[in-house]
């Protein structure tokens, strides 16, 4: 069966080699660093076997407990996280900016606790925010030179809601420029390393957010997902990631890449943490006309109440394994991990069958056309006129040309050019319109599969984390061969379907982590989180 999960953060401080030695930790959660000046809350007695004392699965809940029980102050917690960042950041480089008001905000929180005021659900929770999500008092660059030094005059709705719930924003995390990439090497500023193996990439584009949670630099983090940008880095960094249904979380304040696909997602070291963060940021927003007015259920109540110590806690749940995501192009180790996960789900009482999505191979080209077309339009506003870097010129066209030529990186330029081409007169019907039709087809086939199954599973990525520097060759190769499997294909597909996903860590301690992707019907995040939670908790015992 699956091996014990490995927490990379402990090892990181001691070992900077490629593989982390197997240690006896049997939980998934944040473990305090021995070197942190103030120890982080101890969520549980780590050595206790789960059968007698189940590990509380949430760092957020244990922080809340330590604050309310006055075991630790928010300032102590803040200092320990900042110390952790100081120690790890030179190796990981997840952050583009670290907030200078963390201690001040922690002090305010401590005063609130002293006055016995009511605390929000994220009180004292240190949150990393991807740098393409706007923050009023910090720079927000989107990982691009064109916005170097830009400070927005407003908070994104998701950030505002995190703050209203008591969360403390630690800093802005690194990303591929404007979210365009899957390694975080496309950042204009720095390359982020994978905490499991600093010679490898953390995935992307939300690589900074995934790495920061993985390395214990923050409790949870916000990322964004257009074509797998939350799920793939979660897989690479061995953390939980969720890409909610399109319309569940407001995009207001998220720098648009492909508006009809963009979604803000969450990272955490446990399913419950991820669910608590998602709950805080979900719901209709007057500032985003594409948000849903559906009620937001309490995602995590189902998790905590679920009794996963029954022999078959998921009895009767219909699980479909997507056949096309386990084809020849997929890494053998990944395939076997997924089959093991399927076997584990069967042990939990699920009926696992194989499903086929015939339109699968159309997903990548359709995704590319839609995403690139929309991005060519969305990035038009970076013209050097109102904000960001302007390259002065005598003539208007040169001002535009120079500002954009010097401001954008090559991947962004490539995508703008391709998108502009696809939307040009005479090509619109052949490309954009056709891609929309394909999207409808794929949505239909997903709906069929989800009518017959409660959830679908697939790998989150066809491989484990690549070495830094390797991926551009890979991407170029993909473009030439048009081979959907070489890309993070399953993440793309789910995206076009607009449903929700949970990414789960399945760590092989002797290698890089492998992610299991769980796909559910639109707005069914609660079910996914429940399944994910039971899967995560029961995995401990094996």
């Amino acid at each position, binding site marked *: 069966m699956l091996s014990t999960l490995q927490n990379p953060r402990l090892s990181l401080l001691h070992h900077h080699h490629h593989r982390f030695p197997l240690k006896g930790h049997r939980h998934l959660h944040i473990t305090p660093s021995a070197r942190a000046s103030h120890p982080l809350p101890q969520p549980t007695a780590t050595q206790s076997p789960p059968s007698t004392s189940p590990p509380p699965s949430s760092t957020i809940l244990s922080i809340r407990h330590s604050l309310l029980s006055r075991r630790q102050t928010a300032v102590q917690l803040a200092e320990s996280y900042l110390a952790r960042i100081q120690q790890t950041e030179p190796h990981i480089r997840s952050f583009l900016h670290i907030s200078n008001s963390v201690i001040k905000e922690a002090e305010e929180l401590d005063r609130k606790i002293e006055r016995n005021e009511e605390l929000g659900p994220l009180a004292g929770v240190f949150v990393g925010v991807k740098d393409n999500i706007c923050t009023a008092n910090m720079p927000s660059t989107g990982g691009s030179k064109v916005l170097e030094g830009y400070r*927005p*005059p407003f908070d*994104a709705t998701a950030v505002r809601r995190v703050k209203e719930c008591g969360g403390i924003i630690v800093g802005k995390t690194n990303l591929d420029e404007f979210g365009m990439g899957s390694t975080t090497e496309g950042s204009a500023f720095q390359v982020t390393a994978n905490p499991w193996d600093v010679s490898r990439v953390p995935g992307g584009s939300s690589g900074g957010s995934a790495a920061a949670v993985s390395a214990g630099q923050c409790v949870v983090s916000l990322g964004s997902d257009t074509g797998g940008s939350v799920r793939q880095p979660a897989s690479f960094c061995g953390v939980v990631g969720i890409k909610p249904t399109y319309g569940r979380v407001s995009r*207001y304040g998220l720098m648009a890449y492909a*508006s009809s696909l963009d979604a803000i997602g969450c990272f955490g070291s446990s399913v419950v943490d991820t669910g608590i963060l998602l709950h805080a940021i979900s719901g209709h927003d007057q500032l*985003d006309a594409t948000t849903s007015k559906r009620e937001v259920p309490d995602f995590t109540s189902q998790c905590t109440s679920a009794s996963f110590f029954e022999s078959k806690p998921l009895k009767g749940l219909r699980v479909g394994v997507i056949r096309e995501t386990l084809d020849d192009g997929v890494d053998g180790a990944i395939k076997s991990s997924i089959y093991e996960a399927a076997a584990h789900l069967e042990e939990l009482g699920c009926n696992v069958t194989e499903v086929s999505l015939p339109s699968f191979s159309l997903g990548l080209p359709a995704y590319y056309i839609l995403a690139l077309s929309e991005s060519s339009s969305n990035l038009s506003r970076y013209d050097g006129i109102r904000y960001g870097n302007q390259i*002065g010129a005598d003539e208007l066209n040169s001002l535009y040309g120079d500002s954009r030529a010097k401001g954008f990186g090559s991947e962004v330029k490539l995508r703008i050019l391709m998108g502009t081409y696809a939307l040009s007169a005479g090509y619109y019907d052949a490309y*954009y319109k056709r891609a929309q039709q394909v999207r409808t087809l794929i949505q239909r086939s997903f709906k069929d599969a989800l009518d017959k199954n409660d959830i679908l599973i697939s790998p989150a990525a066809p491989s484990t984390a690549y070495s830094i520097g390797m991926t551009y060759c890979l991407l170029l190769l993909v473009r030439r061969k048009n081979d959907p499997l070489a890309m993070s294909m399953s993440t793309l597909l789910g995206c076009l379907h607009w449903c929700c996903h949970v990414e789960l860590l399945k760590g092989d301690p002797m290698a890089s982590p492998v992610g299991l992707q769980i796909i559910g019907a639109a707005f069914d995040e609660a079910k996914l989180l429940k399944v994910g939670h039971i899967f995560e908790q029961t995995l401990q015992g094996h």
Partner: protein
Amino acid sequence: MTSILYRGLQTHPLLLYKSVLFRNNGVMYCTIRSSQTQTATYESNKTQPKISPKTQAKTLDKILKDYEAIIGIETHVQLNTLSKAFCSCPYNYGSQPNTSVCPVCMGLPGALPVLNSKVIEYAVKVGLALNCRIALNSKFDRKQYFYPDLPKGYQISQFDIPIASGGHIDVDLPVEFGGGHRRFGITRVHMEEDAGKLLHLGNGSYSQVDLNRAGVPLLEIVSEPDMRSGIEAAEYGAEIQRLVRYLGVSNGNMQEGSLRCDVNVSVRPIGQEKFGTKVEIKNLNSFSSINRAIDFEITRQAALYNEGKDDEIVQETRLWEEGAQKTVTMRKKEGLSDYRYFPEPDLPEVVLSGEYVDGIHDSLPELPEMKRRRGAEVKLAANWIMGDIAAYLKNEKLSIDEIKLTPEELAELIASIKGGTISGKIGKEILFELIAKGGTVKGLIKAKDLVQIVDPAEIESMVDKVISENPKQLEQYRGGKTRLQGYFAGQVMKESKGKANPGLLNKILLEKLNASS
């Protein structure tokens, strides 16, 4: 919503101001030809067009004998909603630059548009008033081009599915221009957002951007190319202005740019089917300048045709220069510009219910044109009746109090004529009865069996009878003496005792007379 947007701004007013106006030491280096900021200096506020100079009219008359002008107009109407189209900023003409802006209308990263539902309501009002079909399912699209006054690099507009299309507007030409009624087709009405303004101050080496106007809702009303002269175009514009003011959707002020007309003019020799090359004219700040600019342009193009230089008429945008009273080249169009339209992904589709549209339809005020037309009818009826009554009083040396006609019955009489129950001729007969003997209109109509005959079959049988009784006249008519139609009509009317509906009578009679023998 408002508070969030403002909070962001109020806490950073300097930041925004700086970034817009004084960035990089206060200059935005670019050279841009000014078009939007030119304003006519000696325009009166009158909406009625002035008579164009006599000399120009003369030349025009001469040339127009051989040439026909084809004119279409695109009108941009700024809607006077309380806030902008996609954010909660207000818009007040003449405010200090960049004082009515927010992240949305400045196109800041991450900002998203949210539609102001008043824009839809106003668009439907205007669409219905222009007799258009309203699209129950429409959408917004992005029209993409780069310009410093366009913050997002695209304009939110409507492309292939406008909210309203296929309508018309009725216009009466002023008597001094020959009078007459015209109906001009409306191709489409669509919603979009306005752009900001460039200010060209200082020494000309830089321009400044004012985004107060960016995001203000506009309706673009596109006419069919149905106009043939400057005065027709000017009257069309004036009618649109009256209409939007009546509906209360815009102040229609041309000097402030709340109503802007761009006209397209082409000329072709009469008889030629193919349209000539289309030229666009901008900077028209009054209806009078529309009139004069078009007439100038027609003369210019026709003169080029006359001299065999029609290849010198090129597709271009020309600017009306008020001072010189002429149009000059602003920019030549090199091929069709590609705006790369695609559906706006940030906004849901616009879905209207039939009840919503009906509700707006029922709430529309009476339109200016309808009001005028109805007024004219009533006036007409009143005129002859009052004339006849006055004559009767004079002849009989009576005062108005001494006759037996009551005001109520007079109103009833007019209504009966207008409603078509009786003809005008019979109306006069009844009038004298009412004056002399009193009684009610309804009673008299019934007693005398005066109800107008509107049954085509009944009229047809009378026509047949008259034709068969006059074979000689029929032969003469068919031999070319068509004036005999009047004789036949008189005979049929006599046959009907004056009760046949004259319109129907003439229609049926003509059919019968012209039927092949």
